[in-house]
């Protein structure tokens, strides 16, 4: 552990004592919990009253003309299964640098861009290779460098990483970064050793239906985000529909629903997001979080979740 790490640990320990004492926390929790319970009961009572009134007023119509539920228009059949393909592979032997638990090179979709990460053998560094259709931004201090026999740029980044950028074809730009930094020659050697063997990783989930008009912009081992057309791609969940795999025991309280035979819980917040948590019965929890400006109607949210299959390679993520 470095001196800085010791210093950070010491400061965190010392200043943790500046946290609030929470003398009134228990009373505040009880008050708020009672308020929410009352609100839930009132809401349920109001819904029951409205439904009872509606049913009383329309018994003959219901009997004469059974209600049919139209197929929701907010969902559509996906064009293809969600996968991430990266056209290059790390140099052979790179896996030797992977620590236990991290496995081999990791392919993911990050902010809409295929990304490959692996440990650089013989160093403490992690290499991240990103493919994009346009040239990645580089600092003004970038200098010309030959990369894989092509003209490229090399730069030490403001955050102390090192980066190489080059173009493989008309719409294939690559950026190779290393943190902590390694010498540019070392990184160029790594780039030269990249193999033209595509690496494909399936998303952690298979979808029978997906939100219409949304584009998948992030795929990792535990989550997939669906981005609306009016929201720029980034690596956050904000403004998107996110499907995550968690573990049971993390459920937030909410209204119970049935999702294809599995117990589900719907939770909403005043901020406008809704989360549907589905207990898969094997210790895992499927979470569909809708934090979009125009939320999915709840029937669509449930139908969307009911059509999700968790793939074997999926790993539970955020708690």
């Amino acid at each position, binding site marked *: 552990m470095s001196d800085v790490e010791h210093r950070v640990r010491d400061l965190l320990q010392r*200043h943790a004592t500046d946290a*609030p004492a929470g003398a009134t926390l228990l009373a*505040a929790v009880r008050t708020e919990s009672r308020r929410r319970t009352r609100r839930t009961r009132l809401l349920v009572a109001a819904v029951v009253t409205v439904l009872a009134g509606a049913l009383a007023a329309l018994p003959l119509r219901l009997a004469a003309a059974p209600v049919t539920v139209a197929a929701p228009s907010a969902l559509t059949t996906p064009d293809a299964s969600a996968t991430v393909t990266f056209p290059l592979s790390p140099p052979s032997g790179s896996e030797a640098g992977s620590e236990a638990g*991290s496995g081999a090179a990791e392919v993911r979709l990050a902010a809409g861009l295929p990304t490959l990460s692996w440990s650089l053998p013989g160093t403490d560094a992690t290499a991240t290779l990103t493919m994009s259709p346009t040239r990645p931004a580089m600092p003004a201090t970038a200098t010309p460098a030959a990369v894989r026999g092509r003209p490229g740029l090399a730069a030490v980044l403001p955050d102390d990483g090192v980066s190489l950028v080059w173009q493989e074809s008309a719409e294939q730009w690559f950026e190779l970064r290393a943190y902590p930094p390694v010498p540019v020659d070392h990184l160029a050697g790594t780039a030269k050793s990249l193999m033209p063997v595509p690496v494909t990783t399936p998303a952690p989930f298979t979808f029978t239906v997906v939100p219409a008009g949304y584009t998948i912009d992030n795929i*990792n*081992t535990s989550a997939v985000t669906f981005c609306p057309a009016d929201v720029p791609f980034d690596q956050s969940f904000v403004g998107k529909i996110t499907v995550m795999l968690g573990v049971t*025991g993390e459920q937030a*309280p909410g209204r119970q629903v049935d999702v294809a035979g599995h117990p589900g819980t719907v939770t909403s917040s005043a901020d406008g997001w809704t989360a549907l948590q589905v207990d898969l019965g094997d210790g895992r929890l499927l979470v569909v979080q809708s934090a979009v400006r125009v939320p999915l109607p709840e029937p669509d949210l449930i139908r969307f979740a009911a059509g999700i299959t968790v793939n074997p390679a999926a790993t539970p993520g*955020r708690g």
Partner: protein
Amino acid sequence: MRDFDDFVTGRSAALLRFAYLLTGDRHLAEDLTQEALVRVHRRWHAIVGEDGPEPYVRRAILRQYLSWRRRRASTERPIASPPDGPADLADLAERVVDADEMWTALRALPRSQRAVVVLRYYEDLPDAEIARLLGCAPATVRVHAFHALHRLRSVLTPAFSHPLPFRGDTS
């Protein structure tokens, strides 16, 4: 629900410290902790498993901190209030200066980096467990830690404003 009262009485201080280090704001820490405890209170018997309720509450605090919009972002204060109780004035002054440096540095970090710092150096969790909590690969945790340490190194104290050789980020 006597057990719940005992749990809050016994563990709220530790939970508030965790939330405070994540948020850097005493009021927001109270909000996050209270919200987590309200959820626990409403389904206390369902979540008390072998590990007890504390892991659930900590995960709830972390989830809110990472995924939810900041509710009090505009009111966060960069300098922590002095701790309760008597303190030597010189020591208090030093602590306030340190706190100022630390909160300034921590507030400049993206939330994911800050979470990694707290989970790694306060909670002492291994990278694999942090990766599981954050929903990312251990390699991503190492990158977050590297960026965070780089920024903290440059602002914590003048002694650390000079480049130091990176000595690995695996505890």
